[in-house]
Structures are given as C-alpha cells and as structure tokens.
C-alpha cells in the first residue's frame, strides 16, 4: 500500500477533514460545494405546482348561544336560592362587560369587610408570619423595632460569629 501512494486513496477519504488541512482555500470550497450538491440531490421534494391556500372568510358556528346572546341557564327568583342569584348577577354582568366596548365598568362585588379593614388585617398577618418563621435572635430584633415609636436609627450590633482564639 505504501508503494501505491496518494493516487489510490478513495474520494471519501480525501473528503475527510484531516486530509484537507493541507489544501488551499479554493480547493476546500470546491469540495464543500460538491458535498452540498450531493446532499441536496438526495433530498426528496414534491413536483407539484404552487397552490395558494384559499382564505376562508366564511366561519361556521354550530351553537345558538352566541347568535341569540343567551343568558346563563341557572336562575332563581325572589330569593329562593341566594347563591344562584349571586351567580346570575356575576355571569350576566360579565357577559355585558364583554359586549360593551367602553372602558371597564368594574362592578364592585359586595364585600363583607371594607378594603381598609382588609389592609389592616393583612398587615398584621404578614407581621405575625414573619415573627413565626424568624430565628430566635431576629425575633427579639423585630419586637425591639416595633417598640421604637420615633423610628430612631438602630445600632446594628455585629453578628456574633466565631472568633478564632489568638495565642
């Protein structure tokens, strides 16, 4: 095999990367193009004329509900079932909001407690949850901060870390 020399090497072998390191840029380009041509020849394609998809401008709708704007099916009259009456208000005003294209008519739902009450309770809830999950040292810090009504500058003592003994 050594006697034959470079002439007897196959085409595929010559196309491999390590054999091309010594080549010029031009030769490399030619080889690349040949490879691409071989690959794209192997790809399959449909030999049909180009068909444009027709845009459907007729939409089919099978249900009567959007046609006639039917309301919600559960109804209750004269307070027979108060939950259903609430639902009726909710669902029917929701539908009206979709129809009106003005700015939001945000219908405020009846609330049991006012917004301020809600905000106050939420604040205290957050505080108590924070205390519950705080470490013992932080817990005392929190209570100390709360007692300071004037909100003076608090002196932050350095955290107690391990001090290496000096011999």
């Amino acid at each position: 095999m050594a006697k034959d020399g470079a002439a007897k090497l196959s085409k595929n072998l010559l196309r491999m990367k390590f054999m091309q390191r010594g080549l010029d840029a031009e030769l490399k380009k030619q080889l690349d193009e040949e490879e691409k041509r071989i690959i794209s020849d192997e790809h399959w394609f449909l030999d049909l004329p180009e068909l444009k998809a027709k845009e459907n401008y007729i939409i089919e709708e099978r249900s009567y509900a959007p046609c006639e704007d039917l309301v919600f099916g559960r109804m209750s009259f004269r307070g027979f079932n108060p939950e259903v009456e609430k639902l009726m208000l909710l669902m029917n005003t929701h539908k009206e909001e979709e129809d009106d294209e003005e700015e939001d008519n945000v219908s405020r739902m009846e609330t049991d407690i006012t917004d301020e009450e809600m905000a106050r309770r939420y604040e205290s809830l957050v505080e108590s949850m924070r205390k519950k999950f705080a470490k013992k040292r932080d817990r005392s810090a929190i209570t100390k901060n709360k007692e300071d009504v004037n909100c003076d500058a608090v002196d932050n003592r350095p955290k107690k870390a391990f001090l290496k003994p000096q011999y």
Partner: protein
Amino acid sequence: MDTIHACFKEKIGEVLLPGDVFSFRLSESGDGSIKTEKIICGPGLRRNGEEVQVCKSGILRHKQPNMYWIDSQQRRYVPAKGESVIGIVTAKSGDIFKVDVGGSEQASLSYLAFEGATKRNRPNVQVGDLVYGQFTIANKDMEPELVCIDSCGRANGMGVFGADGLLFKVSLGLVRRLLAPQSEIIKDLEKIFPFELVVGMNGRVWVKAKTVQQTLIVTNLLETCENMTSQQRQTLFKRVAEGSL
C-alpha cells in the same frame, strides 16, 4: 363586501328551505381588498366551497355585524361545543361518568372536571344525579365530552345540582325563548311565586319551588307556553297568580 351582505339582506326574515344557496361571485382582480371581512354562519347554514347553503327550513335571522342563522323548531338535540346542558348520570366506569344528554350518544364526563377535584379527592357524584355542564368536544365524529368547570378552573354554577324538584323536557325553541336576554316568559313567571329554575340547551328544564303543588304549577305553565300567543299567556298567568294567592 356589500355584495355578500346584499345577498343575505334581501332574505332576512323570510322563510328559507333546505337547498337554497347563496353564492357570491367575487372577481379575482380585487385580490386582498375584498376578502377582508368574515361572515359567520350560524346553525342551519353550511359552507360549501365558496357558497353558503341552507340545510334547515326556517326564517333567516341576522345579528350585527356579520352573523346569520336560521331560526327553526325542533325537539331533538344535537350536541354543539360550548353549550350548557343538563345531563343525567347513567354509569360510573373507572375515571369517567357516562351522562345522558338527550343526543344520539351518551357524553363522557371526567371526574377531574369538577371544581376542586383531584385524584385523591373525588367528587361526590352518584348514578342518577343531575349535572349542569358544558361541552368541550361535540362533533359528529367523536363522542361528546362534558366538563363542569370553565377554563380558569372555577365551577361558575356548573356541577351536580338539585336534590328535589322536577325535570321535564320541552322543545328547543322554547328553551331559546326562555334564555333570551329579555325574556317575557321569565318576567311573567317571576311575579307568581319564588322558585328556582335550571334550563339546559338540550331541551331539559328543572324546576324547584317551595311546595310540590307550586312546582307542578310552574311545570304546567312552561309546558303550555309553547303554543300560546303572548296575550293568552299573560291572561293565563294572571289567573294563576290570583288563584294561588
């Protein structure tokens, strides 16, 4: 665009028969400018290539801006996606319930399609219960599927309802009259006595009032409403209101 609406406009309010065709010959030269608006064909109208064909006999109705449909009468319900119906649970098999909705096939309702249902926390649904749900899948090729929650996961009034009360069947036309936005029948019924009503688009209506007699009165009124003019109905309701008080 005006040609299309003009074709329809001359027939709005007229009786059409199956086989009537609306065809629009659009010139190719306009290209993008003509085909911008969409037309929505409601029930009773079908698209056939570039034409619209009528497939039910009835009156052509129109809603702004571009919705047309045929108003017809029938008693047989065909499931359609998005409609809310009353179903009766007939069987429990594995993970789904089989529900009878009055169509050609029984609908399936998964046990996870209830509010707050998980694999461990199964909903309390027995055979014979009444269920108010919506269709998610309803076409002629597949078995219809019901759910009792909306896309956000909330029940919104759907699910099992009603221990007492009476379920009966009416025609689909009456159901649509009852569910219309400003329904006169409902307004007249309200004045008589307090009661609860669930109307399914498959022609089933469930009524519950304080006593059995009142329930039966409401049932009979609804069943007779179908074939009465509004005047006859109002005189009848007045008589009932006076009689019961």
